[in-house]
């Protein structure tokens, strides 16, 4: 759509005026004083005209930046559908027919669709991706954010309580940093809770220098990544390196690099190798459940390659890929997965989750009564 630029019209008028003044100069050219005055007047007008053209030119956004995306329900739907179509990395591994979903949901949107209706349609559409990295933040509407995937459906968990561990299993739960807690479990087993994977490698290096020294005489360590929303893979790989005794491919991934569903970069690899000044190679149990997400899952995947590590608990979330944030013309923000993450052997657990070596699904009634059966199993594995 062409739009008239008001500033250009204004400038054109000024330019016409400048030309008229220039013509006036000609009639006064035999009077030296007037000529001088008009010379400067002409110069001033030219400078003003020049500045006017610069500012007017620069304020025509449509001309300089291209036409704005229309902020209406239909275009918001189209932008969302198209962006996901071009960017989402999980269509192939999840066997999702995204085109057919357009035919289902697009007719539901009209120019009169309300924000609430649009939010519900978007949520229903994104439900099909079944991906914990897919979320929708309907800004300035007062609606709660939407979360896809199993964690979005579950909302919360009943199979884990840190209070139960602090009260019934540990001598004293100490805090090393914002997301790193530690203590000694009964039976001389170390306990480290990682509440996230994004404190920075420097922090983790210092933390594990301290923790591995602190737990050097224990019979084993439990690393608890239940209710860990993830963070950055480089950091989870570094932590896994503090428990590695040899170099291995931890996992591999490829990123979207084109609009077609099968447009990916070649596979990149994350290598797990011994990190830091010491590594812990005695028995380790990594505790997982459905709210172990993203970089917490790649951590579990990398740790599972070590013979002295056992994964205990429930299956992880199934959202391994990196994600990106994007916006819609109405200002809403959404996130999607933009890659294809695989185990070292090429298996994709996207949308499935990494199964533990030893499955122990805590009963919510047990947890409410102060018992963590999965933790007890982990301790017994390390003691034996």
């Amino acid at each position, binding site marked *: 759509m062409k739009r008239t630029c008001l500033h250009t019209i204004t400038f054109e008028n000024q330019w016409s005026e400048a030309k008229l003044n220039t013509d006036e100069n000609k009639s006064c050219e035999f009077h030296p004083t007037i000529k001088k005055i008009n010379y400067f007047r002409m110069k001033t007008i030219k400078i003003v005209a020049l*500045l006017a053209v610069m500012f007017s030119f620069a304020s025509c956004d449509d001309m300089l930046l291209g036409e704005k995306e229309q902020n209406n329900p239909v275009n918001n739907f189209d932008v969302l559908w198209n962006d996901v179509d071009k960017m989402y990395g999980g269509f192939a591994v999840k066997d999702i027919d995204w085109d057919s979903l357009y035919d289902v949901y697009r007719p539901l949107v009209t120019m009169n669709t309300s924000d609430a209706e649009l939010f519900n349609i978007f949520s229903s559409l994104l439900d099909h991706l079944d991906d914990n990295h897919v979320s929708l933040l309907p800004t300035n509407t007062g609606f709660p954010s939407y979360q896809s995937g199993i964690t979005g459906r579950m909302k919360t968990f009943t199979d884990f309580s840190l209070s139960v561990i602090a009260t019934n299993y540990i001598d004293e739960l100490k805090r090393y940093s914002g997301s790193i807690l530690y203590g000694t479990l009964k039976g001389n087993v170390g306990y480290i809770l990682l509440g996230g994977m994004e404190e920075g490698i420097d922090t983790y290096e210092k933390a594990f220098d301290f923790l591995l020294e602190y737990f050097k005489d224990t019979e084993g360590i439990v690393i608890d990544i239940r209710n860990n929303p993830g963070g950055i893979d480089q950091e989870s790989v570094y932590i896994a390196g503090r428990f590695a005794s040899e170099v291995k491919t931890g996992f591999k991934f490829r990123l*979207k690099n084109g609009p077609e569903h099968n447009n990916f970069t070649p596979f*990149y690899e994350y290598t797990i190798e011994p990190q830091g000044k010491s590594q812990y190679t005695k028995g380790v149990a990594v505790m997982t459940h459905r709210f172990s997400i993203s970089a917490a899952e790649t951590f579990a995947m990398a740790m599972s390659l070590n013979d002295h590590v056992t994964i205990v608990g429930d299956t992880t979330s199934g959202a391994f890929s990196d994600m990106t944030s994007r916006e819609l013309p109405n200002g809403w923000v959404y996130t999607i997965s933009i890659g294809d993450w695989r185990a070292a052997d090429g298996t994709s657990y996207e949308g499935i989750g990494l199964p533990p070596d030893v499955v122990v699904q805590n009963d919510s009634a047990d947890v409410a009564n102060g018992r963590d059966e999965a933790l007890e199993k982990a301790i017994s594995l390390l003691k034996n």
Partner: protein
Amino acid sequence: MNKKFFLATLLFCLSISVFAGNDITENRYTYLSLGTGYSQFRMIDRKVSPLMYSSSQSPNWLSFANITENSIFKANLNFVYNFTSPDEFKERSFIFSSPNHNGVIREDTATFSKSSLIQDELTVEYLRLISANETGKLKLYFGGQLKQYFSYSSTQAPVFVFSEISLNPSLLMRYRFSDTFESQSGLSVPLASLITQMPYSNDPTDGKHNYLISTFLMGSNFASLNRFQRINFHQSLQKRFNHRWAVALDYDFYWLHYRNNCDINAYDNSVTVKLLISLNSKK
């Protein structure tokens, strides 16, 4: 970033010391200038967001120029640290919920507000006199410039990265109104550029390098005029008070367009006041 900026400034100052203290003739003029002002930056990076982002900012300039009878050497460093937000959504709030370590759901409200914007531009330019009128008041120069430009904004939603290293032919017109007052108008366009933006996935991860390095490794492409267009316009009015001091009122405008899967368009208008300090000793 401060450390890098300090290092760049130090290198810049060291490089100009080569020219400082030259012997003076009437045709030779060497100066250092410092400036600050006001600029309006507007951008749309359709690969990252359909929204237009804008920022009103105070650019900081550090420039060096060595002018001889037949040539001009210039080096400019422009640095901006400010904030940006989408035009129509200066502040956006949203409600989110997450369980704590005991499974109790906490609901909270968060806000997307202004996000930091970092930009720098380093230009090194050499021009030769190609034409002058009879009085010597009007001079036309032609030459080339090497431009390095970097823009980074990490909003709470998308991340914008744009880097340009380009070779630009440039044209400069000087007009001396009097011995102490002159105008300079310059124009340049890039012919060949190395452009870096976030890779297609918006995820600069290669499993080996940090985000900054992998952004350059994964998101860089050579571009000629058909893929990357930029117009740089410079207008300066300079008034010299005495042998040592002068002031300048500058207007700078650029518009850029990069075509790569999705377009990036941006422009910037800035008005700057500069203080010019002559590095020549009085003859």
